[in-house]
């Protein structure tokens, strides 16, 4: 899964730890998602999209898709 999370996070001026606190996960999980080493659950994907006030498809795209 590809994602545009780093861009959204930096645009919001948040550190990985601050975003992690906001969506209720650990900083390591946000880091793993950004490095595309971990695909979040649907619950977490919804929480991230909700936090950035965007759609899940804006944040995540399947491998090979346009982010």
């Amino acid at each position, binding site marked *: 899964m590809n994602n545009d999370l780093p861009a959204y996070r930096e645009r919001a001026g948040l*550190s990985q*730890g*601050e975003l992690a*606190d906001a969506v209720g*996960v*650990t900083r390591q*999980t946000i880091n793993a998602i950004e490095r595309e080493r971990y695909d*979040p659950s649907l*619950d977490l994907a919804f929480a991230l999209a909700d936090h950035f006030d965007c759609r899940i498809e804006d944040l995540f795209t399947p491998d090979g898709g346009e982010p």
Partner: protein
Amino acid sequence: MTHQPTTRRIGTRTRYVGLWIAAGVCYVGGLVAGYPLVAVAGFVVCGVAATATVHRADGVVFDERDRDIIETASANTIQVLGIGSAIAFPSMVVLTALDYVRWPPWLGAVGFFVAGLFALWLAFLLIARYRR
């Protein structure tokens, strides 16, 4: 400061793992040294401290990624144990039957343990399947 919660969480995770390692060291060390009650007491104290560390933490200490990692490790363990047992035990039975080796008594206990483990795994598999 924005970095404090993150630093505290990393500390909590490290402390949790460290306490469980200490529990294991206490247990094995106590048994080897010939103090079984001290071994169990040390294990219990460290285990309770580890559990309390997580429960008393402010933020999230372990999350869905940790669960995913544990599930992957558990699945791999069961797979390796299953393949290893499927090769080792029939091979030993054949070698024993052909009189190449003598069946060691401890291997029977290991066999029962593995069988029990897979019976438990099968039970949980059926429960998970039923719920989905």
